[in-house]
């Protein structure tokens, strides 16, 4: 035990390396956000964007940036962070690599709620020239989507209260509820007329451009709070990685943490999904991608997944808008379409083996 400095130093270097990766992803995300604001038919330049943000832009630029692009970009960032972080936390809490908002029925519940609002409650639809179909009463749709996605969560958590709260019961009941809600959605769709049907389908595709400023604030607030909660639990999640009894032995109150964590995850995911629609894949793969790059330490994995989620949604939204412009492709589909090959590549190739 003569000199213990060198090992600690190399550990510190290793930690510094992780922080550098995080910073790199912050830069990448910022760059993607800038591109997302610029990209489109208005022909903006980065200078225009900075001028406008500083309050010195032209009237047209102000309308384009503050009215359209910025809300859209911020929505993508916030939703990406929220979905990725909840996915990351859920994968730890449920000790299952497949856990995400759709595993415990949150997404399917939201889809059912939206379908219910549009078709049964008649939230109304109208045609919109460039964007396809939009609903006239988005608040009712969001409210219903939110209510049903939370219902799904409470049933899952309620059921697991009967027996020991085991992750398997939670996931299995989540799968059962997902099936139930998907079935329900299918039945509603079957009886819907053409216009409502297309509105339902269009809603479930997900869209970063449908959120109001107020909704963005709500999403950002909820996401920020849950992110803080998850970060405070980072050591608990680390402990849980080596198994439930080891975690208890390290002083983690596993059952209580699991219950609180699930409620917070579901609530956050439900808010996001009911505002932007179903964007499944981000929450599932962002943590996995970053786990391969930065390792399983939740001190770094949580912020890294958040950045990856934001980056993926920004990138997907840019692609969705530009590929067949002026038509905006469904972002949920683009995320999966681009994310799946990346994910497969990482699974089979593997990176970050130090």
């Amino acid at each position, binding site marked *: *035990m003569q000199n*213990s400095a060198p*090992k*600690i130093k*190399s*550990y510190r270097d*290793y930690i510094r390396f992780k922080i550098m990766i995080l910073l790199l992803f912050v830069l990448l995300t910022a760059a993607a956000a800038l591109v997302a604001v610029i990209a489109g038919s208005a022909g903006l330049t980065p200078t225009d964007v900075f001028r406008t943000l500083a309050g010195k832009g032209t009237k047209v630029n102000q309308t384009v940036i503050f009215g359209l692009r910025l809300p859209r970009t911020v929505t993508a960032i916030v939703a990406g962070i929220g979905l990725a972080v909840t996915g990351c936390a859920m994968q730890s809490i449920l000790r299952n690599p497949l856990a995400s908002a759709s595993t415990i029925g949150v997404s399917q519940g939201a889809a059912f709620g939206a379908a219910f609002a549009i078709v049964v409650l008649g939230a109304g639809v109208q045609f919109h020239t460039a964007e396809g179909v939009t609903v006239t009463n988005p608040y009712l749709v969001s409210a219903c989507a939110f209510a049903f996605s939370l219902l799904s969560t409470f049933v899952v958590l309620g059921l697991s209260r009967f027996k020991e709260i085991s992750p398997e019961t939670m996931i299995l009941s989540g799968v059962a509820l997902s099936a139930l809600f998907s079935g329900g959605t299918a039945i509603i769709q079957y009886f819907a007329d053409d216009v409502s049907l297309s509105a339902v389908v269009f809603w479930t595709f997900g869209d970063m451009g449908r959120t109001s400023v107020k909704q963005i604030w709500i999403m950002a607030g909820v996401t920020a709070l849950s992110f803080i909660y998850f970060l405070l639990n980072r*050591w608990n999640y*680390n*402990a849980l*990685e*080596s*198994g439930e*009894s*080891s975690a*208890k*032995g*390290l*002083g*983690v*109150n596993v059952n209580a943490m699991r219950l609180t964590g699930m409620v917070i995850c579901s609530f956050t995911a439900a808010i996001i999904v009911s505002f932007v629609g179903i964007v499944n894949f981000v929450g599932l793969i962002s943590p996995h991608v970053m*786990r*391969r790059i930065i*390792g*399983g*330490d939740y001190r770094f994995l949580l912020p890294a997944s958040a950045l990856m989620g934001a980056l993926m949604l920004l990138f997907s939204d840019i692609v969705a808008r530009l590929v067949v412009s002026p038509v905006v492709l469904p972002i949920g589909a683009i995320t999966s379409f681009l994310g799946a090959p990346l994910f497969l590549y990482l699974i089979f190739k593997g990176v970050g*083996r*130090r």
Partner: protein
Amino acid sequence: MMKVKDLNFSYGCHAVLRKIEFDAKEGQCIAILGNNGAGKSTLIQCLNHILSPQSGAVLIDGADVYRLKRNEVAKRMAYVAQKNAGGRFTVFDSVLLGRKPHIKMEPSQKDLQITESVIRRMGLEEFSLRYVDELSGGEMQKVMLARALVQQPRILLLDEPTSNLDLRNQYEVLAAVREVAEQEQISVIIVIHDLNLALKYCNRFLFVKDGGIYAYGDQKIMTPEIIGSVYGIPVAVESVRGVSVVVPLPEQQALQPDKEPLPEKKNAARSQELVRAHSSLSL
């Protein structure tokens, strides 16, 4: 000093532990011995409040484990499970995790130094920045032991710590445990199957049979009678070059048929009962 008082534990209506009572003093190494399914792992998990027994108390220096917060228990007791998942963590991070009960937000220089010195003590320096999911079973076991030591507990609970280790590592790891126990005056409680390792490195022996304590004491209770009756197989306890060893003598089983029924026979009887119960149900 740990006192266990009248511990009873059952899964549903199936009683696993009955009236467990024993003491563990500082610096003692206690081997928990018994058949598979006798309740050894359950016992060790009850001591640490990983499982909650129906009644009883575990006192560490007078404080009842079941009334303490988990984090407080973790400062006093460390537990190494039989099976350990790794996750994508470096060895250093995995060991550092043992400081969790003491860490508020981020590890201090002291936490890092303790981690460093335990890594050195367990001979893991060359692995310290390797990912644990790339280690062998034995190396992993050492990492988990290192994590428990970093916790700086008063009591160390080990569930079959040598099950994945090769011969040399078994002796090295247990010697290290014994050394730490004596130096830091920790009580170590080990569930162990290898009676010879137990004889060499432990100084107290606790036999568990059918959920109760069959015998508890020092080396004097490691007699052929007690061991034979707990494990249901005749043994001899001999001294080879001054080292006590237990030699199983299965060939003598036939000579003394009425002494102890074999566990297999018991199981066979039980499963027949089950079959009968089942068929009466279906009628």
